[in-house]
C-alpha cells in the first residue's frame, strides 16, 4: 500500500517536475515569475484535445498543441516581458497573469467550463512488480520527463548556447557586454519553458484522461511550490522539489484525506522558506530577485 502510493506520488511528481523546471528557467535566467505558464500547460492539454476531437492523428494534434504554446509564449515575451525592462519588477507578473486569464477564458468560450474526457491513447496495460501496479502511461511520462530534464541539463552545461544562457543568468549586463545576443536568446528561453509546460499538460491529459480550461491553476501553483522547495534557478532542485511535492500530495490524500493536501504541500513550502529560503539544494541568493 505504502509502496504503491509512493509510486503514484512519483508519477504525479514527474508532471510537477516539468512545471517546476519551466518556472525555474524563467526565474533563474530572466528573473521573471511567469504566471502564463499554467495557461500554457492548459493550452497543451486543451488544444491537443480539440484537434483529436476534429479527427486529427494524435501526433499532429500533439505537435499543434506544442506549436500553439510556443507561439503564445512568444506573445507573452513581446507584450508582458519586453516592455517591462527597467520598471518595477512586479509588473510583468501582472501582465503574465493577464495572459493566464485570457487563455482560460478563450478556452471557456470555445469548449465550455466542463471537464472534457480526453481519449485514452495508451492501451490500458499495467506492469506488475511484486504487489505494485504501474500503468504504462504513467511510466512513460516519468521516463519522458526525466529524459527531458537530463537533456536540458546536458544542454545548459555543455553547449555554447547553454553557456550563453548561464551567463545571462549570472549577470545580464555583463552577458550583453560579452556579446551574448539577448534579443535572440530570450525568445528562445520563452519557447523552451512554454514547451516544457505544454508537454506537462499533454502528459497530464494522457495520464488522467481529462482536460478543462482551469486545469493549469492547481498544477501550476504546485509547480511553483516545487521549484522553491528544491531551490530556485536550479534544475535538479526543481526535479527534487517536484517529486517531493508529488509524494507529499499523494501520501496525504491516501493517509489523511483530500482536504489536507494544501496544508501539507504549502506547509512544506512555508517551512522550507523560513528554515532554508534558498531551497533544499539551491545556493543562497547572491542578488535580489523580484
Amino acid at each position, binding site marked *: 500500500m505504502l509502496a504503491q502510493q509512493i509510486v503514484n506520488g512519483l508519477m504525479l511528481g514527474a508532471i510537477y517536475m516539468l512545471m517546476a523546471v519551466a518556472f525555474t528557467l524563467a526565474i533563474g535566467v530572466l528573473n521573471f515569475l511567469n504566471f502564463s505558464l499554467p495557461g500554457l500547460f492548459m493550452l497543451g492539454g486543451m488544444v491537443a484535445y480539440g484537434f483529436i476531437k476534429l479527427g486529427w492523428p494524435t501526433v499532429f494534434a500533439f505537435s499543434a498543441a506544442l506549436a500553439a504554446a510556443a507561439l503564445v509564449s512568444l506573445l507573452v515575451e513581446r*507584450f508582458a516581458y519586453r516592455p517591462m525592462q527597467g520598471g518595477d519588477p*512586479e509588473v510583468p507578473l*501582472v501582465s503574465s497573469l493577464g495572459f493566464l486569464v485570457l487563455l482560460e477564458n478563450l478556452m471557456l468560450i470555445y469548449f465550455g467550463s466542463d471537464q472534457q474526457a480526453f481519449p485514452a491513447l495508451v492501451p490500458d496495460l499495467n506492469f506488475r512488480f511484486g504487489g505494485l501496479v504501474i500503468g504504462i502511461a504513467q511510466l512513460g511520462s516519468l521516463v519522458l520527463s526525466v529524459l527531458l530534464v537530463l537533456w536540458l541539463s546536458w544542454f545548459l552545461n555543455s553547449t555554447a548556447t547553454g553557456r550563453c544562457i548561464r551567463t545571462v543568468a549570472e549577470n545580464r549586463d555583463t552577458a550583453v557586454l560579452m556579446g551574448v545576443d539577448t534579443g535572440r536568446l530570450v525568445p528562445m528561453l520563452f519557447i523552451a519553458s512554454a514547451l516544457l509546460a505544454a508537454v506537462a499538460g499533454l502528459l497530464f491529459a494522457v495520464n488522467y484522461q481529462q482536460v478543462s480550461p482551469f486545469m493549469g491553476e492547481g498544477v501550476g501553483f504546485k509547480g511553483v511550490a516545487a521549484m522553491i522547495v528544491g531551490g530556485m534557478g536550479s534544475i535538479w532542485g526543481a526535479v527534487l522539489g517536484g517529486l517531493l511535492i508529488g509524494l507529499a500530495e499523494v501520501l496525504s490524500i491516501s493517509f489523511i484525506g483530500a*482536504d489536507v*493536501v494544501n496544508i501539507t504541500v*504549502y506547509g512544506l513550502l512555508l517551512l522550507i*522558506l523560513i528554515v532554508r529560503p534558498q531551497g533544499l539544494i539551491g545556493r543562497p*541568493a547572491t542578488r535580489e530577485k523580484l
Partner: protein
Amino acid sequence: MSGYLTGVLVVLAFNVMAAYAVYLPLAAGQLNLGIAGFMAIGAYASAFLTNEYQWSMWAAIPVGSALAGLTGLLIGIPVLRTHGIYLAMATFALGQVISAVFLNLEVVGGAAGYPVTDYVGPYGVFAAAIGVVLLMLYLSRTRFALYLTAVKSDATVADLMGISVRGIQVAAFALGAAVAGFGGAFYAHHYNFVEAQHFNVLLSVFTVLYVLFGGTQTVWGPLVGAAFFTLAPELLRASDQWRYALFAIFIIVFMAMRPQGLVTTSLLRFTRRRTATESEEAA
C-alpha cells in the same frame, strides 16, 4: 439605489479594502500574495465570536481584524527574513495554508461553509470601506508613509538614516493583514456565510492585480484600480462571454503601455498644477 447597483457597490467596497491591505506592504516593497488568508482569519474569527459567544458584531469585527493583524505580526517576523520573490512565495504559501486550515476546521463547518447570523447592511459596508480609505489618506500624510517609501526605494540608505527597516516592514505587513481581516469580517457579516474556498489564491492574486494596475506610487492607486476592476467587467456585460477575455487583453495592452500603473506621482502633480493655475486665473 437599485438592488443591482447596490450589489456592485458592495463588491467594490470589499475590493477597495482588500486593495489597501495589499497596498500597505507593497508600499514598503513587499509583495503579499496571501491576503486572502488574512481575510479568512478576520471573517471566521468575527463569525465565530458572534455565533458561538453571542458577541455583538461591533465588538467581534475589530477583534477579528486584530487577530488577523496579530497573525500577520507573528508570522511576519520569521517570514520577513526572506526578500523579494521568496517573500512573495512565502506569503503565497501562507495564504494557502490558512484557507486550507479553515477548510478542515469542523468547529466552523469545514468544507460545508459556515453560516453567520448577524447581518450588516450595504451602508455599513460602504462606511467601513470609506473608513479604510480615510485611514490610508491620513497615513499617507504622516512620516510613516515616508518611511515606507524610503524602505522600498533603498533599504540600505533607509537603514543608514536611522530607520528600523525590519520594524517598518513588519509594521506594514501586520497593518495590511489587519485591514484584510477587517474587510473579511465585514464580508462574513454582509453575506451571512463564509466558506474557505472563497479565500483562495486567485482572490489574493487578483487583488494584487488591482493595486499594480492602479499604481503603487500614490495612495489613490489602489482605489482607482479596485474601482476599475469592479466596474469595467460590469460595463462589458453586454458582450457577456467575451467580457473577461476582452478585459484580459485590455490589461495586457495597458500594462505594456503604462507599466507604472494608472495613477502616478507625476500625474497627480500635473493635475494639481493645472487646478492651481485655473484658480489663479479665476482670481
